[in-house]
């Protein structure tokens, strides 16, 4: 009994560094308050300040209910050897109910292919700066602030938690929409993800619009113009060409009508390889089945031979007692 207790204790002590460590592989994208920036690494008071410079960029004036893009710019990036870096977009830094959604914003997409306020990005060792962009629908008329924050580990693998935030918020004035402003319909929800090799047909619906043109670009390259087809009832369509590898394509729409011409923010369309998925419960159950069937099969096999052992051998076995 005492022997098993010591062995169990030794095993627990060996496992503690693994189970009690932070999340060196990240926690995945999600909707998180900034407090999680500390909580995911343990006590927020243990955080050290990241040397990365974080700034939030976007339009100063945005129409109520229309789309706008907010970019978080990271300079002098410091992170772990794996390059994992968590980036938050926040409405304040109070640590509770501080996501953009809590302030009335509606996140349509982000440049990593999701629609959450927290994304985890991989930064290559030679990369010194990086942008992460969110496309959001503006809340009701008023003045709003948006902040950004980051968290990461260290390059030396000590897993010391680092936290950084924007020096100053981006202040945005939300104003009422002029009656005849050319715009996308209020329920427009762009496609943000697709598979590699797939041509995407985008459908857009507009209000107070007489002419539409679309531009697209692969991140960091020249802007191309897409052929647009006018459908009935203020609907338009265009095709985004297939990508041959995982990549990010950005596109935006120029809208013309009676009111002042408008240009939408850049929308992001991320191409991903077809994800390999499996039901983990089925895999774990099969794993258990393999353990039991191999054990039972071998014991049964040896038991079958047991009857043919001579008495003298059995006596020998009793004498030896076997491996305890």
């Amino acid at each position, binding site marked *: 009994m005492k022997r098993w207790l010591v062995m169990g204790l030794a095993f627990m002590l060996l496992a503690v560094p693994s189970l009690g460590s932070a999340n060196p592989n990240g926690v995945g994208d999600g909707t998180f308050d900034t407090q999680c920036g500390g909580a995911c690494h343990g006590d927020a008071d243990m955080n050290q300040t990241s040397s990365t410079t974080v700034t939030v960029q976007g339009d100063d004036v945005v129409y109520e209910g229309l789309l706008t893009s907010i970019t978080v710019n990271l300079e002098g990036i410091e992170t772990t050897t*794996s390059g994992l870096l968590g980036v938050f977009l926040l409405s304040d830094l109070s640590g509770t109910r501080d996501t953009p959604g809590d302030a009335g914003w509606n996140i349509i997409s982000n440049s990593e292919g999701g629609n959450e306020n927290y994304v985890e990005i991989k930064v290559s060792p030679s990369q010194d700066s990086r942008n992460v962009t969110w496309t959001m629908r503006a809340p009701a008329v008023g003045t709003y602030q948006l902040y950004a924050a980051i968290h990461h580990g260290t390059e030396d693998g000590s897993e010391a938690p680092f936290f950084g935030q924007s020096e100053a918020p981006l202040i945005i004035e939300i104003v009422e929409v002029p009656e005849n402003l050319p715009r996308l319909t209020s329920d427009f929800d762009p496609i943000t993800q697709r598979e590699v090799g797939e041509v995407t047909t985008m459908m857009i619906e507009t209000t107070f619009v007489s002419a539409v043109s679309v531009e697209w670009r692969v991140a960091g390259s020249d802007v191309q113009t897409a052929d647009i087809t006018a459908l009935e009832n203020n609907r338009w369509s265009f095709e985004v060409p297939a990508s041959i590898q995982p990549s990010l394509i950005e596109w935006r729409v120029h809208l013309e009508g009676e009111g002042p011409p408008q240009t939408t923010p850049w929308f992001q369309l991320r191409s991903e390889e077809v994800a390999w998925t499996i039901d983990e419960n089925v895999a774990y159950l099969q794993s258990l089945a393999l353990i039991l069937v191999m054990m039972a099969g071998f014991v049964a096999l040896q038991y079958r031979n047991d009857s043919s052992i001579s008495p003298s051998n059995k006596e020998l076995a009793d004498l030896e*007692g076997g491996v305890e």
Partner: protein
Amino acid sequence: MVSSGTLHVVATEMTVGSFAMAGTAFLLAGLASHGVTRLEAYLKHFDHIAHFALAFGLLAMPLAIFSGIQSSPGDGIDHPLLINKLFLSSASLGLALGVLLARRSRGVAIWEHTMSKRWQMLGGMVASGLILLTASIGGTFSRGESLLDFFHLPYDMVPLMPMWLSLLVIIGAVLNLVAVRRSSNA
């Protein structure tokens, strides 16, 4: 604090090293029990080394599995190589437990009978081989290459059974163990 990745390397080296030693000792024990020249005298030593090394490898294996899951990138097991690693290590774990249980119940006499000593040697060696194959997959996953690459093994294929079949196999295995236990007590 030691990261999961570092701990995984330590745990896998303990596991693979123990199993490699066990596999070699099982081979030598098998040869000794078959009367190979000048090895008979060392049968008892080979027997003890083989089973002790196997038992130690089994103790280290759960730590290797836990730290491996913790240190793998992304959420959970989302790659065919990781699933195959899980299956191979599970098969090895089960087989090694069977080998140890058989040795415990029958003692050193297991090396006396023609068939039992062959099965014991094979069981121990196959359990070790499965762990080495698991380690090879680990190398393919983390570094893109391994020593066993020249076999061109289909690591990307996952032989997944439906849940009901796994349950059926578990029930059958448990019944089998109970039946063997009752028979041995009778």
